[in-house]
Each structure stands twice: as C-alpha cells, then as structure tokens.
C-alpha cells in the first residue's frame, strides 16, 4: 500500500494494557504512538496529528475526560476520532466520556481484535491496513 498508514495514538498509564493493544495494532498494519498520561497524550496529539486516539479515562496529570475536552476545543484536533478505552463500567462514566466529546466508549477488558474493529469503524476502513 502506497498510502500512509493510519496512525493510532494510544493513551494509557497501565503498561501491559498499553503494550498489548500497541502490539496488536502494529501487527494489523497501523502506525502506533503511545503516551503514558494525559499531558503527554495531548502533546503527541497536537504534534503528530494521529487519525484516531484510544483514550484511557483515569490518567495521571490530565485525565482522559479533560484531555478529550481540550482536544475538542483545539482547532487542530476538534475533528479527531476519539475512542475512550476504560475500565469504568458504569453507565454514568460512559455518559461522562460521551459528554466530554468521545465518539465511542469501549469498556475494558476487550479483545484487541474487537478494539481494532471499532478503530476501523471510526476511520471508515473496510479492512485492516495490513490486509
């Protein structure tokens, strides 16, 4: 494929959770950037213009709700696809994430292939970039 690989920014402070998703998405042909907290996530989002963000919500420095609000408020990232990826399972947390501006909320645990399907859906891709 001559086109640029779709880029996913993965913001998660839990290392194993971050690594497992990063490894799978890389394997499926995505460019993956990772960040360990909300502040770092914002910095990389503005600097590297990813196509989609997978955003954990409970994060150090700037939390995922606030980071999402800031991305939505900025001209450069207001159209960015943001999928919340969270271990919060209650409906009110889901609603808070949608209210903050997330396009979709996925609850952990999730199998990486299901997560990739949602990434594809958000990007309007019919198949994985690696296929």
């Amino acid at each position: 494929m001559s086109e640029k690989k779709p880029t996913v920014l993965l913001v998660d402070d839990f290392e194993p959770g971050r690594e497992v998703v990063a490894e799978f998405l890389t394997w499926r042909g995505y460019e993956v950037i990772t960040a360990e907290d909300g502040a770092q996530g914002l910095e990389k989002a503005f600097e590297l213009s990813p196509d989609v963000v997978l955003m954990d919500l409970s994060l150090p420095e700037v939390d995922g709700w606030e980071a999402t609000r800031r991305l939505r408020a900025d001209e450069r990232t207001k159209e960015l696809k943001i999928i919340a990826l969270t271990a919060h399972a209650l409906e009110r947390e889901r609603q808070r994430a949608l209210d903050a501006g997330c396009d979709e909320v996925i609850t952990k645990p999730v199998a990486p292939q299901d997560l990739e399907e949602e990434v594809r859906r958000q990007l309007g891709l019919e198949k994985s970039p690696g296929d």
Partner: protein
Amino acid sequence: MADARPTTEAPSSADVRTDAAAAEDRARLRERLRRQALELEQVSAMKSQFLANISHELRTPLHAVVGYTSLLLQGVSGELGPEQREKLERIDENASHLLMIIDDLIDLTRLDSGQTPVDVEEVDLRAVLEEARAESEELIAARDLDVTFEVEDGVSAIHSDRAKIEQIVHNLLTNALEFTPAGSVDVRARPATEGEGVEIEVADTGVGIPEEEQGTIFEAFGQSERHFHDGRAGTGLGLSICKRLANVLGGNIRVESEPGEGSTFTLTLPQTLKNVGRAPEGT
C-alpha cells in the same frame, strides 16, 4: 391516645408532664432517625464508590490477560500447536467467567443499594419471550431439548421495565437449559392467579433442586454447588440478581422443585409498576 381521653375532664398535671415528655421523646427519636438515615445514605454511597473502584481495579489487569491471550490466539507471536491453542482457549474462557462474576457483583451491589434506575414503558410479553428465545438460540440449538414459548390468551401489555424483565427471563431460561439433561423447557406467560398482573413461568424437567437448598437459592452464592451441563460453574449470583430485579419491579419470584423431576420458577409482575425509581423496602 389523646383523642380517646374524655374531653369533659381537664387533664391532670401528671398527664401534661407525660405528654410534654412524650413529645420531647418523639422529637429526639425523629432527630436520631434522621441522622441514622443520613449515615446510611453515606455508607451506601461509600459502598457503591468502593465497588466501582474495585470493578475498575479488577478490569484493568483482566484487560491485559484477555489482550495477551487473544494476541497469542490470533497468531501475532507465531503459529500455535493444537494443544497450545486449547490451553489458551481455557485461559480465555476463565477470563470471561471472571468478568461475568465482576459484572454480576456490580449488578447485585447496585440493586442492594437501591441505585438501579427503572425505565417504565409499555411491555409486550410476546416480544419479551421472543427476545429470550432469540438470545438463547445458540444454547437451545446445542441442547437436545423440547423448548416451547407461549403467551396465554388474556395476557395484555404491562407497564414495567422491559430490559429488566428480559434480564430475568434470560437468566431463568439459561439456568433451565443448563440444568436439564433431557426433556423439555417451557416458558409461559399467563394472567396472575391472584389479582391483576402477570406471571412468567419457566418450567424444566431437569435435575431439580434439593429441598434444603430451595430456601437459599436466591441468596448470593446460594447455588455455588451447581454446575452447568458441561461442567462450567455459574457465577452463583444469577438468581439473587433475578430476585432483586423482580423486587425492584414490584414483583416476586418463587421456585417449586422436585429433585430429579425438574424445577419451575415463577416470576410475578404487577400490571403497572408504581413508585418508579425507588426500590421497594427490603430489597
């Protein structure tokens, strides 16, 4: 009682003192109850927050377990031998089971703290039974059983929370299918035998429940000794969730069972759910 006292006689000073003292007692009691209610509310809120935190902390490492297992099963780290695949699938199944327990515990706690929102609408029981059938299609197909669904004449739409009724029926049906090695499972909706309302009955010809367990079967982990037909364990929480859901809907649930003959679970629901948004006392 003050009203019962003859009005022609002036109350003695002893009576007046007693009345004043009683009024003071009542005021003190009211104040104490008010404070206790407030404390209970705070305890309940803390308990919910604690459970929400526990759920979050359990899901986070489980995410890594599920993730790495899927990663290996998908072949990201190379081809798997059949035995490796089989063992990874066992890890995956058990991770799913653990997640079910976490979900059920959260459900149960929310029900116990009266924080379960209720969404009342017109509910057509035919649609509820159809949904239950569709949801269990795979399990029904996998079991060699006669499974029937019937809504008797005279059952009209009720006003209740459809999703909760579906959750109860789904749970009862799954149990019936799992605990019935041979024979039949019949799901039937009919007008209540007493008063207004409906009953939904799930009757099976399965293993049944020993009499000494029938009293505790609706308690959390009350049926932990029972295992599904393929040896999988239930979460042990399904029926206690059903019982509490039924109570939230202003109804009830009961069981009749004969070991070796089968079990019949009957969910009773009022025609119209009142006091929306508040769980009845004692749930």
